[in-house]
Every structure is written in structure tokens, then in C-alpha cells.
């Protein structure tokens, strides 16, 4: 029988929705018994949120001051100390999980299965390679611990309605002091979170400046959408880097994705393959984005954006 440990992602006070997505992935393994581990300085509220996720058997907490910030070098030994009781250890494919899980895998002496998009068997999975241009079915050794990340865009968040027991875990390990958290700079925003929003409006290089990128924010506000961007727009400084969508940015699966002045490079498309409806506005009718867009409008964005925003605001 599979015993799965999921490593919760949180910001110190609230659980990240990526955790409930990992639970869906784990639940796809036959007969899986699922525990969630919360590493935090103070786990209370976060653990309660994890305990509410359907399908979770137990929530384990590892509370120590060193866990105030998620440092892989500090967390990995604690996870590895608990891994012996499990057949699978899974984290999300977010930057948190991508940083932590390979360190856990190496401490346990195994390779990691990155970005599980489908479960074919307890040790057989599908994952994307080459920026999603190929899907490979992989089989990990059945007699070794399986460490993996779940590709969050491939899994729905498991529903909440559970009240699993919460217990303190014996995650004892010597923790290093060679890695120190200094701080984080986030562009404060009241807008929906890019990774979980059901609607996203994204802008590309064609916006031309930070001021003109406001056109993207204006349409997003009317739709209650999150804002995304191509790498070119981020590199040009039109918007903050955490808005980047694509192979090296965020991989998202909103119901509606509106791409404005984005050409549709492979690396960008990787990020939106699982979107419900893709809308593209681009003045070049040959732009590759039109090969995948469900609805395309060939037009100068500066001519149509004000009209579109006005039309959708009433």
C-alpha cells in the first residue's frame, strides 16, 4: 500500500493552494494513505487548513524557529528524517517544491520524478520534457522511496471539508546555519494570484512601456483577472518578474487566458497549455499564438484595448 507524505507550502500564516493540488495527485495513486507535513515556526492555522483537505489522513507538524522561512537546506533534513515511514514524498512544482524536493531526494539517495502530470501506477507517471513538447512515461524503481513534484497546473485542488487529526512529528535533525534568509521583495497587489486565478490577462513586448502596460491591468481589473506577462515584457521592465508565464515562469491553467501583443514562443506556450480558452490579440496574423488560440483578433492592441475594456466593464 502507498503511504504518501506531502510537504505543505505556506507563507507562514496561510496554506498555499498548491498543497491541495498535491493531494489530488497523491490520491490518484491506488490505495494511497496521505499525510501532510507542515514545517513552520508556528503551524497552528496552517495545519488546520491542511487538515480540512479531503483525502488527508493526518497532518504532521514540525515547529521550530528555524522553520520560519522555507530554506531547503534547513527543511530537507527534517523531511528526510520522516521519509523512512513512507513510500512516496511529494511536493508542488512551485519554486518552493522545486528548490526543496531534489535536496530531499538526494539525502534519501534517490532521483526525483519532476512535474508529475498523470499517475499511471504507483511508480509510473507521465511528465513533460523539452518545454512540454514531449510527454514521457517514466517508471521509478518499485522498491525504493519515490520523491516527486506534482505539476500543479495538471491537478485540481482537492476540496475542503475534512478534519484530519493534527500531530507533532518527530522530525529531528541537525540543522545547518550556512544558509540565512535575508528578506523578500514582492510587488504588493490586491489582484488575484496568477497561479490560481480563473482568468488571466497577459501582456507582451508589444505593450512598449510600463505606462502602456497599464492597458493590461485595466482589462484585468474589469474582469477580476490576474495579470501575467511574457519574458520579453518582464525583461523590458514593464512589470515585475513574478508575473512571467512560461517554461521559466509560472505554468498556469486558468479558464480564460487573454494574450495581448504576445507572439507565442514555445517557451511561453508551455505555461498556458492547460488553459481553458486562449484569446489572442496580435497585429501580425502570422503570429504563432494564433495556431493555438481559441479566439483570435488580428488588430493593433492600442486601437482595440480601450474599446474591449469598455465593452466588458458593462
Amino acid at each position, binding site marked *: 500500500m502507498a503511504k504518501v507524505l506531502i510537504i505543505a507550502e505556506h507563507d507562514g500564516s496561510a496554506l498555499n493552494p498548491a498543497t491541495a493540488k498535491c493531494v489530488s495527485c497523491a490520491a490518484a495513486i491506488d490505495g494511497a494513505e496521505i499525510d501532510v507535513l507542515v514545517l513552520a515556526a508556528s503551524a497552528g492555522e496552517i495545519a488546520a487548513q491542511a487538515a480540512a483537505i479531503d483525502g488527508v489522513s493526518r497532518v504532521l507538524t514540525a515547529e521550530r524557529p528555524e522553520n520560519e522561512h522555507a530554506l*531547503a*537546506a534547513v527543511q*530537507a533534513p527534517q523531511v528526510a528524517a520522516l521519509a523512512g515511514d513512507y513510500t512516496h514524498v511529494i511536493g508542488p512544482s*512551485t*519554486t518552493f517544491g*522545486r*528548490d*526543496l524536493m*531534489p*535536496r530531499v*531526494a*538526494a*539525502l534519501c*539517495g*534517490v*532521483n*526525483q*520524478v*519532476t*512535474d508529475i502530470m498523470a499517475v499511471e501506477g504507483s511508480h509510473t507517471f507521465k511528465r513533460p520534457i*523539452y*518545454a*512540454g*513538447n*514531449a*510527454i*514521457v*512515461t517514466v*517508471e521509478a*524503481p518499485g522498491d525504493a522511496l519515490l520523491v516527486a513534484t506534482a505539476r500543479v497546473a495538471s491537478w485540481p485542488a482537492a476540496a475542503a471539508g475534512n478534519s484530519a487529526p493534527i500531530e507533532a512529528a518527530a522530525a529531528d535533525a541537525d540543522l*545547518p546555519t*550556512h*544558509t*540565512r*534568509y*535575508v*528578506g*523578500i*521583495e*514582492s510587488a504588493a497587489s490586491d489582484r488575484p494570484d496568477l497561479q490560481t486565478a480563473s482568468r488571466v490577462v497577459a501582456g507582451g513586448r508589444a505593450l512598449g512601456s510600463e505606462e502602456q502596460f497599464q492597458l493590461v491591468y485595466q482589462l484585468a481589473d474589469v474582469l477580476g483577472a490576474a495579470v501575467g506577462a511574457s519574458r520579453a515584457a518582464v*525583461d523590458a521592465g514593464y512589470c*515585475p*518578474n*513574478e508575473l512571467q508565464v512560461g*517554461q*521559466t515562469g509560472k505554468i498556469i491553467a486558468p479558464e*480564460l487566458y487573454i494574450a495581448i501583443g504576445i507572439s507565442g514562443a514555445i517557451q511561453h506556450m508551455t505555461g498556458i*497549455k492547460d488553459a481553458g*480558452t486562449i*484569446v489572442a490579440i496580435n497585429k501580425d496574423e502570422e503570429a504563432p499564438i*494564433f*495556431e*493555438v*488560440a*481559441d*479566439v*483570435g*483578433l488580428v488588430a493593433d492592441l492600442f486601437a482595440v484595448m480601450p474599446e474591449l475594456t469598455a*465593452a*466588458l466593464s458593462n
Partner: protein
Amino acid sequence: MDKIIVGLKRVVDYNVRVQVKSDGSGVETDGVKMSINPFDEIALEEALRIKEAGNASEVIAVSIGGSDAQQQLRTGLAMGADRAILVKVDGDIDPLSVARIFKALAEKEGAELVMLGKQAIDDDSTQVPQMLAAIWDRPQATFASGVSIDGNVAKVVREVDAGLETVEVDLPAVISVDLRLNEPRYVKLPDIMKAKKKPLDEIALADLSVEAGPTIKELAFAPPDGRQRGIKVDDVAGLVSALKEKGLV
């Protein structure tokens, strides 16, 4: 600081739209343009800048792979690496074994910094740097978009989902780099000529006494579910009604 090791993986060029072979046994790599993994070029550029700022004495480029990877190492030497090492491996090798190779080299060379790409764009696995840091028992600073060295400490800005995180790590350490860290320099013809005279050593896997770990088998390859080309609308009104029809607004 003494030495910096940089990993240069030979991969299918990022401009190539890779195709899955019709029998599902792999992806087509015959006659396809190969390059240095783009992240690794950025790692090398950063290492060279650290050296040029007087914070390192030597930059060593390392590739693990077949003889073909000599091309990428020569490019790395032309960019400015002092010497190169090719660890000869036939066929595929798993990330944990690659990490073990880097650890063996880091110890052998007494390297204080190993700079790698945040991911190889072929397998997109994002594992080697973190694994190396784990088994070497050293800090990792992944997804770096800013690096500054101050004595025995590196201050690294990391691109994380929530924004830009800063961490401080004691050297020796592993840094994995993201795209916005720098713009790699262009190689000029005289540099290519000079690079021919720089040392490029070949090492067999056995010389490093590395054993390959339990590997993950690749059973089958398939193209992704394609998206269909949709409709074109003529104007904003057409767009709005298409969205209404789909129940999206």
C-alpha cells in the same frame, strides 16, 4: 576565492521545436542543432564576471556526456573559462549521478563555488544543483537573478513565485542561475583561436569512483495533446460575443 566550477550541458538548441519519433522511442535529435544549455551560459558568464572582479582565481567548465560535448566546452573556453573537463559518459545519466560527479570534481579541485543552470532545457528536471548541495552538505541558492560575493559569503537574489528573495550563503556553495542574472558575452574570432590552446581534459567516470544511482526508466514518449486552431473574429464586438457564447464573461 579560489576556483569556480561551471556545468555546461550539451542540449538541443532552444529554438528547435523538438519532435517525438514516430515509434515513441524518444525525441528526434539526429541532425538537430545542439548548444550549451542557455542557463549554463549565464552561469559561466557570472563566473567569469566574479573572476574578472578579482573574486576568483580560475573558472573550470565541466560537461558530462559524450565526445560531442567537447564543442560546448570549446565554446565555454572561448567565452573565457580557463580550462575544461569532459567527464565521458555514454548514453543517458541520471541527475543524482551527475550530482555525484560534480561533488567528486568539486572536492578534487577544491572549488568554492559550483555554478549551474536552474534547469536543463531537455529533461527540464531541475535537480542537479540541489542534489549536489545535499550530498556535498553545502548551501544551495537556486534560481539566482543576482549574485554578489563578499569574502566567504555569497549574497544571492532568488526568483521565487512570490517575488525576489535574498539569501546569504557561506562558501563553498552551489548556485543555480535564472535567465535574468546577466547577458552572456558574444564570442569573438580571436577568442575561438585562443580557446584551441586551452586545456580540455577527459576523465572516465571510473576515475572519479562514482557509482550510478537507482535510475528512473523512460518507457515511452508521446507528443503533447495538441490544441486546435480556433476562430478569428473581426473586431471587438466579435470578440465579446465569442466570449459570451462560451460563457466566459
